[in-house]
C-alpha cells in the first residue's frame, strides 16, 4: 500500500541550521495494517508523516501509494488517498466556518469540486447521522462555527472528517496529545473503530508507550531519521513500556519525561 524507498529529507539545506530529518528511511506498510510509531523528540516522526502526506518533498527517495509514485505530487493532490489528523486540535478544522461547512469540505475530498451546492438536505442528513455516532450531541449544532467547540469536540470532528471519504491511509500525528485522559480514550476508540470500518492502513504517532503497544498490528521505533525497531504480532504484544524506553535510551536518545510518565 504505502512504500517509502530510501527517503532523505533535509530541512534548510546549505544553511547553518541544516538538519537531516529523514536519513535513508525505508518502510513498507501493507493495506489494512495499523502501525504505531514512537521515538524521541526530533526523531523524525512528524517528518515521516509530512513526507507521506506531501507537505514536504524529500531530497531523494520515492513515495509510492497503491503502486503509484506520488513523490512529486503536492499534499492537496494526495488527499484522495490520505486523511490526516493533526496534533493541534485547532488545525484540522476551519474555525470560522460552520460544522456543516467543515464536514461538506471533507465530503468532497479527493474528488473534483463542482459548481453544485456544497450543502444539500441529503448531505445534512448524512452529517447528522455521522455526528450522532460521536455521542457528543453535535448533530444539533450543524450551523455553529467550529470555533465554539472544545478541543476534544474539534478533534472528534476532525476524526469524523477523515472518515467521510474512503482514504487508503490514515495519518495520525500525536492526535491525542492535547486531549484530557477521558477524551483521549474516547478519540482513541473512535480511531480504532474508524480504521476497522475503512479497512485502510493507519500510521499513528504517539508518545505513549502503552498506546503504542496496545493499539494496532505493528510498532516502529524511530531515531535519527530511521526506523530502528520494528515489531509485529506476539513480538509487539509481549513488549512492555520499559522495554521500549530501554530501546530508545539504548540508542543514545534520551526518552522524554512524557514517555517515562506515560509508561
Amino acid at each position: 500500500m504505502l512504500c517509502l524507498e530510501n527517503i532523505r529529507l533535509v530541512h534548510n539545506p546549505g544553511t547553518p541550521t541544516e538538519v537531516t530529518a529523514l536519513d535513508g528511511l525505508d518502510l513498507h506498510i501493507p493495506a489494512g495494517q495499523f502501525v504505531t510509531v514512537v521515538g524521541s523528540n526530533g526523531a523524525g516522526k512528524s517528518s515521516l508523516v509530512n513526507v507521506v502526506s506531501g507537505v514536504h518533498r524529500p531530497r531523494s527517495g520515492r513515495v509510492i501509494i497503491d503502486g503509484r509514485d506520488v513523490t512529486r505530487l503536492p499534499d492537496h493532490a494526495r488527499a484522495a488517498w490520505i486523511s490526516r489528523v493533526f496534533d493541534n486540535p485547532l488545525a484540522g478544522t476551519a474555525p470560522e466556518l460552520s460544522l456543516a461547512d467543515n464536514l461538506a469540505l471533507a465530503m468532497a475530498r479527493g474528488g473534483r469540486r463542482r459548481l453544485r451546492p456544497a450543502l444539500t438536505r441529503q448531505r445534512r442528513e448524512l452529517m447528522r447521522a455521522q455526528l450522532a455516532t460521536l455521542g457528543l450531541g453535535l448533530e444539533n449544532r450543524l450551523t455553529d462555527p467550529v470555533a465554539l467547540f472544545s478541543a476534544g469536540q474539534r478533534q472528534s470532528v476532525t476524526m469524523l472528517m477523515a472518515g467521510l471519504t474512503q482514504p487508503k491511509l490514515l495519518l495520525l500525528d500525536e492526535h491525542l496529545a492535547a486531549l484530557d485522559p477521558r477524551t483521549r480514550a474516547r478519540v482513541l476508540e473512535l480511531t480504532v473503530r474508524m480504521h476497522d470500518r475503512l479497512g485502510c492502513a493507519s500510521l499513528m504517532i504517539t508518545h505513549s508507550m502503552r498506546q503504542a503497544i496496545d493499539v494496532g498490528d505493528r510498532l516502529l521505533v524511530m531515531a535519527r531519521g530511521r526506523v530502528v525497531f520494528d515489531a509485529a504480532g506476539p513480538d509487539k504484544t509481549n513488549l512492555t513500556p520499559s522495554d521500549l524506553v530501554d530501546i530508545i535510551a539504548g540508542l543514545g536518545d534520551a526518552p522524554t519525561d512524557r514517555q517515562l510518565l506515560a509508561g
Partner: protein
Amino acid sequence: MHYLLTDTLIAGLPLLPVVMGIYLVIRIRQDFDLTVDGSLTLGGAVAAVSLNHGLPVPVAIIAAIAAGMLAGLVTTTLHLAFRVPVILAGLVMSIGMRTLNLRVLGRPSTSLDAGAGLFGGLSGLAPTAHDWIVIAILAAFALVFLAGVSLLLLTEVGLALRATGVNVGMARAQGVDDRRSLALCLALANAGAGLSGALIVQSQGFADSSTGTGTLLAGIGAVLLGELVARPGSASRVGRVALSVLAGTVLYRAILVGALRAGLEATDLDGITALILVAAVAVNRYLPTLNKILPRPRSRAAPGARSSPPVRSTASRRPEPVAEEVG
C-alpha cells in the same frame, strides 16, 4: 431628500460588484488586492471604447468584465510565479495599469457618444423617471452580480475558497488547491471591478483614466460599514455577507453624497473616506464591548492556536486605516 436617495443609489449601485469583490479578498481570503483600482478604470475604458466603436451594450459589458478578470489573473500569476505577496503584486499592477488604461482610452478622458450605452435611450425622459429607470437598471446588474457570487460561494468550489482563507493547511489536507482558490478570488474581485467600471462610465456618460483611483480604500470603508450594520460574522453565513456588502456600499455612498449636500467640496471626499475608515475601525475595535449590550454576538476564532499559523482570526487582521492621500 429625494435627491439624496437617487444620487446615493446612482452613485452607489455601480460600486456593489467591486465592493463584493473586495469583501472576497479582504474578508474571505484575508488579503489585499490593489489591482481593483486599475481594473475598475480598465473596465470603464474598455466599455467606453467598445461602445464608441459601435459594439452592442452586452458585448461592451462582457468585455469590461473579461478585462478585469484578466487583470486579476495576471496579479495571481505575478504572486505565484515570483512569490511576491499579493499586496505587492497588486500595487505593481495598479501602477502599470495606469499606463495601460491611458493607452486603451487614448486620452485622459473620453465622452460616450450620444445615445450609446445602457442609458443612451433614456435621454428624452423626465428627470425623475430617468433617474428611477437608471436606478432600476443599475440595481438589476449589481444585484445579479451579488447573487451570482453568493451562490458561487455556496457551491463546493466556493466553500473551498472560503476554507482557504480561514485555515489553509486544513484546506490543503482536504484536497483544496489554494492557488486555484486565490486565482478564483482575484479573478472574481477584478471581474466585479470591471463590471463596476462599465456601469459607472455608462451612468456618468464618460470614461476617465482615474475613475478607479481609491477604489480599494473606498471598498474597505464600505465593507467595514457593512459589517457594523449587518454583522455577518462567520463566512458560513453567505446571505448575510451579501446583505452587509449591500448595506455598507449604500451607506458609504449616502455619507459622501450627504457631505456634498451639506456643502462640502468634492475635494473633501477623500478626507471623509479616511474618517469613515477610522471610525469604522474604531467601532469594530470596541465591538466586543458593544456586543455585551447588543444582541447577536460575532463569532470569533477560538484563541490560543498552539503552533498553527494557518488558523487565523479575522479580528487580529482588521485593516489599519491608511493615511495616504487618495485621488
